[in-house]
C-alpha cells in the first residue's frame, strides 16, 4: 500500500512537471527583478522594482507580448554578492526569460555567472563597474547606465578634441569616486599622444586651503586641470586659482555639476566645465514616466528610476521583436533594434553598453550649467 502510494505520488509530481512544462508556452512570460528591497541600500533597488511594475502593467493592459501576459518576480539581494548568487539560482529555477537588475555592481558581478550559464539576458539600470561589459566575460549582460569610465572618457575627449589642450594636470580627492575617475582620465590621456599629464595628485578633502597644490599646478605649466571629486574642494580650488589670476581651464565631473558649486564659487564658477548625465528632462517619455510614478505612488521616483523603465522597455521590446523568448533571438534584438525610452532612443552595443546613454559636457555660463552640444 505504502509503495503504491509512493508510486502514485511520484507519478503525480512528475505529471505536475510535465503539465507545467506543457503550459510554459501558454502561461505568462516571467521576468525577474533583482536588487535590494531591504537594508541600507533599499532606496536604490525599490524604484527599479516599481519602474518594472509600471511598465509591465501598461504592457499587460494593452494585451501583453506575443499574446501572453508578463509576470514579474521581484527578489531581494540586499546588494550582497553572496545573496545575489542565491537569488540568481532561484530566478533561474523559476524559469524567468530575462532579469532587470541587479543594482549594485558587486552583486551584479556575482550573479552574472549563474545567468550566463542558463542563458538569461540581464539588464541592469545602475551597475556602473566598467569591467562588467568591458571584460567580455558576460555576453548576457546589458545596462542602461553609462559605465564609470565613460565619464572620464567624455572629459578627456572634450579636453583634447574640443579644447585642444596639450598639458593637463589631473587631481582627485583620494575618494573611491574621485580617484577612480582621475585614474581613468590619466589612463586615457596617457594613451593619447596629443597630450601629456604634467601632474597627478590627490588632495586632502576639507583642508584649510589648497595654495600649495595650486602653486604646484602653476609650476607644472598645466593648461587645464581635470578634477575627480566633489564640489566643496572644487570650488575652493577654482576660486583660489582665479584669485591668483591663473588662466587654467577647470574640467570636472558630476560631483561638481551641482548648483551648490555655482552658488559657493559664485563669479569664479564662470567658465568651468563639468560632465554630467545627459539631460533627459525634456524628453516627453521621461516626463510621462515620472508622472505615472507620481500618480501611482504619490511621491517622487528614486534613483535609477528612468534607467529601470528604459531597461524594462528594452527587454520587452526585444522579446516582441524577436517573436520569442529564445536567448539568442532576444539578445540579438537588444543589440540591433532601437527602442524609444525615457532615456531617448537606445540600443546596445556589442559589449552591452547602451548607445545614446551617457554623459554630456556642461559649461557654466551666467551662473548656470549649460549643456554643450
Amino acid at each position, binding site marked *: 500500500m505504502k509503495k503504491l502510494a509512493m508510486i502514485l505520488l511520484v507519478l503525480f509530481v512528475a505529471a505536475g512537471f510535465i503539465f507545467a512544462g506543457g503550459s510554459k508556452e501558454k502561461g505568462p512570460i516571467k521576468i525577474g527583478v533583482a536588487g535590494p528591497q531591504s537594508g541600507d541600500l533599499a532606496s536604490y533597488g525599490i524604484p527599479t522594482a516599481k519602474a518594472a511594475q509600471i511598465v509591465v502593467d501598461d504592457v499587460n493592459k494593452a494585451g501583453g507580448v506575443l499574446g501572453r501576459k508578463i509576470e514579474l518576480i521581484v527578489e531581494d539581494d540586499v546588494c550582497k554578492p553572496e545573496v545575489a548568487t542565491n537569488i540568481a539560482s532561484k530566478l533561474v529555477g523559476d524559469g524567468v526569460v530575462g532579469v532587470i537588475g541587479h543594482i549594485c555592481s558587486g552583486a551584479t558581478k556575482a550573479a552574472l555567472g549563474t545567468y550566463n550559464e542558463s542563458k538569461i539576458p540581464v539588464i541592469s539600470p545602475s551597475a556602473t563597474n566598467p569591467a562588467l561589459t568591458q571584460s567580455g566575460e558576460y555576453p548576457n549582460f546589458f545596462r542602461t547606465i553609462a559605465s564609470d569610465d565613460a565619464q572620464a572618457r567624455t572629459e578627456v575627449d572634450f579636453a583634447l578634441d574640443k579644447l585642444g589642450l596639450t598639458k593637463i594636470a589631473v587631481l582627485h580627492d583620494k575618494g573611491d569616486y574621485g580617484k577612480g575617475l582621475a585614474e581613468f582620465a590619466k589612463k586615457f590621456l596617457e594613451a593619447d599622444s596629443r597630450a601629456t599629464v604634467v601632474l597627478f595628485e590627490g588632495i586632502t578633502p576639507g583642508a584649510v586651503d589648497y595654495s*600649495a*597644490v595650486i602653486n*604646484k599646478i602653476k*609650476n607644472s605649466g598645466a593648461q587645464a586641470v581635470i578634477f575627480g571629486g566633489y564640489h*566643496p574642494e572644487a570650488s575652493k580650488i577654482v576660486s583660489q586659482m582665479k584669485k591668483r589670476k591663473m588662466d587654467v581651464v577647470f574640467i570636472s565631473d558630476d560631483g561638481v555639476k551641482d548648483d551648490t558649486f555655482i*552658488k*559657493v*564659487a559664485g563669479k*569664479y564658477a564662470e567658465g568651468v566645465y563639468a560632465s554630467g548625465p545627459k539631460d533627459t528632462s525634456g524628453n516627453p517619455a521621461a516626463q510621462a514616466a515620472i508622472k505615472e510614478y507620481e500618480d501611482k505612488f504619490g511621491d517622487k521616483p528614486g534613483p535609477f528610476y528612468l534607467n529601470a523603465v528604459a531597461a524594462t522597455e528594452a527587454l520587452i521590446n526585444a522579446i516582441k521583436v524577436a517573436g520569442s523568448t529564445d536567448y539568442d533571438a532576444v539578445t540579438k534584438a537588444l543589440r540591433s533594434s532601437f527602442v524609444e525610452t525615457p532615456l531617448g532612443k537606445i540600443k546596445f552595443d556589442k559589449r552591452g553598453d547602451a548607445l545614446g546613454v551617457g554623459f554630456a559636457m556642461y559649461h557654466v555660463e551666467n551662473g548656470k550649467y549649460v549643456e554643450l552640444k
Partner: protein
Amino acid sequence: MDHSYFFELFLGGMTRGSIYALIALGYTMVYGIIKLINFAHGEIYMIGAFTALIVSSVLGFTGMNPILILAIASVLAIFFSSAYGTTMEKIAYKPLREAPRLSALISAIGMSMFLQNYVLLAQTPDFLPFPDMIPDFKFLQPINKILNSTQFVILVTTAIVMILLTILIKFTKIGKAMRATSQDAKMAQLLGININKVITVTFIIGSATAAIGGVLISSHTGQLNYYIGFIAGIKAFVAAVLGGIGSIPGAVLGSFVLGWTESFGTGYISSDYEDVFAFIFLIIILIFRPSGILGRKQNDKV
C-alpha cells in the same frame, strides 16, 4: 631650484600657519591656565566665521564699503565667539574644575559635537559662499603672482594680533595675573588673584583670535559650512602640541612649522601625503622633545 616657486610655497605655508596660529593660541592659553584641552575650540572658530558671514550678508544690502563691512563683521564675530567661548566655559567646564581632568575633556568633546550640530540645525548643512570683501591692493600688483591680497591681509593681521597679545601678556596687570595663574593657580588665588576672572579673560582672548582666524580663512577660501572647525581645530591642536602646549610662542612657532611642512611636502613631494608629513614631523619632534619645541619640561613634585 626655482626660487619663485620656493617663495610661493613659503608664503603659502606661512599663510596656512598664520591661521593655525590664531586657533592654536586659544588651545595653548586655555591649557596653560586650566590644563584643559578645549576640543570645542575649533567650533568657536567656525561660529566666528558664521557670524561674519551673516553680518556681512545683511550689511551687503546697504551697499557699504566692503572693507568697512569686513571690519564690522570681524568685530561682531569676535564679540559673538567670545560670548560663546565664555558661556561654554561657565556651562561645561567650570562645574568640572575640581573633577578629574578626563571629565572636563569629555565635556569638551561633547560641547564640540553640540555646537557643530547646533549650527547644522540652526543654519544649514550645506556649504555657503563667503563674500569677497578683501579688495585687490594696488601695491601688491608686482608680486601678485606670489602673494595675493587675502594672503597679505592674513599675514599682516596675524602679526598685529601676535604683537598685541605679547604686549597684553608681558606688560599688563591681567597679563601678569594670567602668567601667575598658569604657574600655580592655587598660589595665585592665595595671593588675591581672581582666578575666575583670569579664566574668563583667557577664554575671551582665545575665542577672539579664533574668530579672527575664522573670518580670515573664510575670506581666503570663499566658503564655509558647520564642519570647518573640526579639521582646522585638529590641525591647530597638533600645532600647539608641536610647539609645546601651554607656551604661547611655542603655539605660533608650531603653527608655522606645521604650515611649512605641509606646504613644502605638497610642493616638492606629493599632496597625497600632506597630512602624513604633518604627523610624521609631530612624531619626530615628540620623540626627541616630548613636551614640544618650546615646551617646558614638567617635573612632577615628589
